[in-house]
């Protein structure tokens, strides 16, 4: 798909305008032709076709059904679509509503109202198939066209999943059928294109796959020729009886539609097959059995369908059946069990024979194999009934029943690692995957039920190992209080920030409703609840969005402190939005593109930038970009920037950055003591641990110093500890003034005085000498030499042995290490300058005491 983007495509209308509206100056068309310049192929997409539309993420294009095509007044080609959404597009928390496993190919009929259904026709990538299924139905087994075929079972309206209404179901089916007809008939228009490019393509493919062995090449060419010849035959047949209902129509459509992608896909598939073959380097026999097993299981895998295809062949089953048929077609030349001539026969017959042969072969072969593999087959078929594992099974069939592999993987499954590399290999090569999980599903699931939910490899993040013992629950009142007072304990509501909360909420809400972008700058000293408030706002908004009061939005958070480099911000944002991992420069480009071009299905994004000042770079391009995006017309980006300083925009930002930031500012004032008091008491609600006065003392003390709520909580926590220690024997367990004062003293006391008092005699003498020298010189700086003289004199006065210079230097550096003194680099020896790190009065006070 990436290569597709690089090749140039031109879009032109197909046919004449169906109708035109004079007033609006729009004209509608029934189809669009996409011409790829490089491969000279043309694709015709008609109304009602299913298409892929370019999305945020190049690997995950949107799925949609084309409803309308028109050219508007400005001669832009527009398309109206009905969206389908992939599982990835559904919010994580909603996915569990499904209560079943979803294969990558399953999509949901999208009924979310917020999405823009009017898109530019140029974003259409190609046509695909979307097959409606009933809820209980198994996914048909496809090895073919993985990227091109999707299934729809349920619809999604943003809140819950619903079964497709019969109406839409039949409509979708209709579309599928119609599509066959149209393409078929359209072939008359462009007959020259039909077969030649295909042949060319297949040839190309064969040539490109030079590496594989000759045999494979042979098989491949035979395979492709047989296909095309078959197609020809079928075509003639078609012309004869014009039977639209038979699945051949579909088959033909697939084979004949001269899309480049088709060819490419064929190539992929061929390569895939070759790979498969290479994997099974083993003797031909095993590979053959592999195929066969695969085949049988494919048939057995959908037991309800076999009778359908054999007997009734109702219209409703066409889709699934033809899919399966294509499967069998593809497999048959490979397994070499059939003559190609057989293909001329009736389809049903062939199906029957195939299934019979499939049934018989493993039976005949199984004695040759280990009995184990046979058992696995049986188990597999029995397990198939369980709907949950259907997806896994499907993958499993591809992997074949290589008994050794299954054994090894079983072993792997047994050792329980949080994220074993095994899982990674599985996901990276899904074809050879999942063997173990459903190999004996009943057994493994029973053994370790937690393993039933395999983690996706994307978020293969490591985990801190679990603790063996459960964490103890708080036993006493004090412990309970301490738990609540921990900063991490998020309260249900944030007291004292109601006003700010409301402001931010209103800001974001209005922007969300308007679908526009905007910036807001929030400042305040540390510990005033900026981040907490913003998170609370987001939480409320998310709740509102869930309740459908607001349009849904995406929420991205970055923290300047958690980035190693300002440019990493791009990477993180992009990863949040699309899950891609790219370099910073590339991410910047992608994001700029994302926010500057109108995206059809994009939700508003709310971006929180914490610690904004750390995103500062010399050219300020990170900040510039961040604040420039919301001003773009289509960005739908709301930025909440958080930083400590109020005048940050004026101080460090260039004018052009500051002006883009706008004037929506808000500053969080430090908490007053009343507010702090309220915060503590709200946290301690229901726990009788603190005396009123004690709380008040703490809050007053903290409010006077910084207004930092974190500090306040920490003091309270420490006070509970002290209290606990003090009252280990006695029963009364409330924190009183004494404890609080002790905690405060512990946190705020200056360590210097204590340090000086505990210093050795000569260290104290040295400090005295420093003071004396300062007083003499009148300058708050002296060299060691000068101090040395004073020191010698002082020690003589005290009647002590005067120290040598080396000893003085040792003392000096010790004091310097404690930062009682500030020293120069020590290589200056005697001429090293010394300064006091605290006021002279403090030193005097500390020395006088004794």
């Amino acid at each position, binding site marked *: 798909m990436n290569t597709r983007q690089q090749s140039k495509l031109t879009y032109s209308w197909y046919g004449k305008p169906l109708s035109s509206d004079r007033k609006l100056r729009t004209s509608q068309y029934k189809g669009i032709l996409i011409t790829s310049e490089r491969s000279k192929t043309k694709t015709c997409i008609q109304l009602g076709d299913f298409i892929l539309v370019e999305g945020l993420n190049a690997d995950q294009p949107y799925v949609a059904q084309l409803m309308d095509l028109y050219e508007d007044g400005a001669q832009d080609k527009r398309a109206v679509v009905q969206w389908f959404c992939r599982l990835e597009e559904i919010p994580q928390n909603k996915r569990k509503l499904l209560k079943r496993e979803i294969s990558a190919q399953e999509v949901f009929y999208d009924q979310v109202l917020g999405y823009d259904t009017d898109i530019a026709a140029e974003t259409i990538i190609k046509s695909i198939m979307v097959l409606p299924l009933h809820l209980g139905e198994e996914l048909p087994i496809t090895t073919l066209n993985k990227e091109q075929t999707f299934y729809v079972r349920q619809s999604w309206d943003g809140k819950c999943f619903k079964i497709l209404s019969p109406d839409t179901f039949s409509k979708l089916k209709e579309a599928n059928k119609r599509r066959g007809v149209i393409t078929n008939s359209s072939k008359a228009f462009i007959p020259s294109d039909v077969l030649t490019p295909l042949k060319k393509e297949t040839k190309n493919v064969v040539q490109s796959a030079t590496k594989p062995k000759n045999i494979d090449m042979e098989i491949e060419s035979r395979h492709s020729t047989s296909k095309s010849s078959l197609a020809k035959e079928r075509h003639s047949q078609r012309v004869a009886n014009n039977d639209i209902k038979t699945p051949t129509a579909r088959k033909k459509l697939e084979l004949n539609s001269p899309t480049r992608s088709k060819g490419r896909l064929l190539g992929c598939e061929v390569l895939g097959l070759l790979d498969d073959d290479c994997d099974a380097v083993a003797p031909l026999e095993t590979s053959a059995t592999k195929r066969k097993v695969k085949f049988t299981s494919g048939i057995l895998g959908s037991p309800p369908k076999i009778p359908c295809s054999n007997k009734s062949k109702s219209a409703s089953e066409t889709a699934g059946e033809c899919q399966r048929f294509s499967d069998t077609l593809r497999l048959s030349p490979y397994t070499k069990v059939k003559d190609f001539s057989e293909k001329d026969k009736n389809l049903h017959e062939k199906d029957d024979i195939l299934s019979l042969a499939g049934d018989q072969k493993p039976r005949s072969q199984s004695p040759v194999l280990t009995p184990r593999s046979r058992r696995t087959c049986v188990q597999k078929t029995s397990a198939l009934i369980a709907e949950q594992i259907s997806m896994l099974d499907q993958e499993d069939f591809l992997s074949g029943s290589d008994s050794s592999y299954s054994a090894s993987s079983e072993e792997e499954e047994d050792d329980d690692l949080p994220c074993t590399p095994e899982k990674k290999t599985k996901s990276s090569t899904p074809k050879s995957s999942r063997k173990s999980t459903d190999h004996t599903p009943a057994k493994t699931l029973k053994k370790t039920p937690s393993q039933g939910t395999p983690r996706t490899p994307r978020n293969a993040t490591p985990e801190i190992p679990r*603790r063996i013992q459960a964490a103890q629950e708080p036993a006493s009142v004090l412990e309970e209080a301490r738990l609540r007072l921990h900063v991490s304990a998020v309260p249900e509501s944030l007291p004292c920030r109601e006003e700010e909360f409301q402001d931010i909420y209103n800001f974001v809400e209005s922007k969300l409703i308007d679908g526009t972008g905007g910036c807001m700058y929030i400042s305040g000293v*540390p510990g005033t609840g900026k981040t907490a408030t913003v998170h609370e706002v987001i939480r409320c908004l998310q709740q509102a969005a869930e309740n459908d009061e607001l349009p849904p939005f995406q929420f991205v958070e970055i923290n300047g402190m958690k980035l*190693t480099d300002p440019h990493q911000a791009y990477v993180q944002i992009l990863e949040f939005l699309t899950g891609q991992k790219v370099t910073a420069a590339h991410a910047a480009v992608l994001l700029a593109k994302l926010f500057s071009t109108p995206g059809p299905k994009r939700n508003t994004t709310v971006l929180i930038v914490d610690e904004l000042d750390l995103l500062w770079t010399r050219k300020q391009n990170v900040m510039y970009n961040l604040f420039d995006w919301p001003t773009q017309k289509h960005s739908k980006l709301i930025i909440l920037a958080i930083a*400590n300083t109020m005048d940050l925009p004026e101080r460090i930002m260039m004018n052009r950055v500051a002006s883009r930031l706008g004037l929506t500012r808000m500053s969080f004032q430090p908490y007053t003591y009343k507010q702090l008091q309220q915060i503590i008491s709200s946290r301690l609600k229901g726990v009788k641990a603190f005396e009123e006065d004690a709380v008040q003392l703490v809050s007053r003390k903290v409010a006077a110093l910084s207004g930092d709520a974190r500090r306040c909580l920490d003091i309270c926590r420490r006070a509970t500890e002290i209290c606990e220690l003090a009252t280990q024997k006695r029963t009364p367990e409330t924190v009183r003034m004494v404890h609080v004062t002790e905690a405060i003293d512990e946190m705020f006391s200056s*360590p210097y005085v204590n340090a000086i008092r*505990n210093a050795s*005699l000569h260290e104290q003498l040295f400090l005295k000498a420093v003071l004396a020298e300062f007083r003499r010189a009148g300058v708050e700086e002296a060299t060691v030499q000068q101090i040395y003289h004073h020191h010698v004199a002082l020690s003589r006065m005290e009647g002590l042995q005067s120290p040598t210079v080396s000893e003085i230097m040792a003392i000096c550096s010790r004091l310097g290490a404690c930062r009682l003194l500030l020293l120069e680099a020590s290589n200056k020896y005697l001429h090293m300058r010394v300064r006091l790190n605290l006021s002279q009065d403090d030193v005097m006070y500390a020395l006088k005491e004794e």
Partner: protein
Amino acid sequence: QRRHLLELLKRTTVHGESNSALIIGPRGSGKTALLNHVLKDLREMKQVSENLLENPFLSGLLQTNDKVALKEITRQLQLENVVGDKVFGSFAENLAFLLEALKRGNRTSSCPILFVLDEFDLFVHHKNQTLLYNLFDISQSAQTPVTVIGLTCRQDILELLEKRVKSRFSHRQIYLMNSFDFKQYIKIFKKQLSLPAEFPDESFAQKWNNNVQHLSEDKTVQDVLQNLFQHTKDLRSLHLLLMLAGSAVTVHHPLLTAADLQEASRQRSTDSKANIVHGLSVLEICLIIAMKHLNEVYDGEPFNFQMVYNGESNAWALQTFHLSLPSYCPCSFLPIAPEFQKFIQRKAHSMYNFEKPVVMKAFEHLLQLELVKPLERPSVRAQREYLLMKLLLDSSQIMDALQLYPNCPTDVKQWAASSLSWL
């Protein structure tokens, strides 16, 4: 203090509470010892050890930047086997990875982690204090329970923290001081020297311990210890002293004596620079003396070689000038004239023998010994003779050294002792 720390760590492990604390104390006050002791106690507690307390130990001297520190944390937490063959690309990736890892845990289920940051003050100097911010942030939010313990000797460590980092720190500081007095010091001394009960040779142990007991009551030993105690309360210096004394113990000299201790103490307290002066030649000493005089004349202003040289030759010129005045004594080697004259003659003697380049060489030797230090880096342009220098010796040191200098010409001694009054 110990109990405080123990409680703190116990809560982290048992309740899954996150905390942060700093242990502050001067060098040699037993910060690491305290922590190790507490950790040992902690591991002995069954409840805690079952919880598999992991503790990455980082030292600011080893993990010189956040990138290295992060790698080390990852290694010590044994997360890299989880990552498998994935190679860590960038620092950013690494950080995101670790944060993600720590974020996944929660209070009740994850195993608590104890981060020990030795030389905490060096972590403070890392760019943006990213590591500290993140560690403290984790400890302040409902993620994997984490206790961050920093060890530092800087009393002003809190002022070094950036404001938002500081706000996230819990402000638990445990101060360790050497607050014992001399009696305790003697006790420590005894304990350090005594042989343990499980010493194989019991009779010798008995004898040795008796000797130690004697020593501790001996006056001279007490003096030595008192002296050391007055200088520093750092127990490591005591260990060093005992080590020096203990190394004197041999088969023939099995017991420690007071003299040994005195000798060790003398060794410990000797002045290194003065010792260097002992090994200098007479010419170099003359140069140093000339510098000392210059220092006195100009009150510690820097000087250059030319000044020193000129100072000598000036003195020599003066000498020639003065030569005529007093009663001239023609003797060439043994000056017997009055004081200044003797000096001058000595000068004459030395200057006659030494050419300027030789003096220069001697000067450079002093430079290499770092007895003299250039004020600025020697540049190509400035001539070496005119580089400004400073003498790194105190006059008292020079005098002390001269006293001990073997075979020092008396005139040199006298010249050194003589102030400039006569000049």
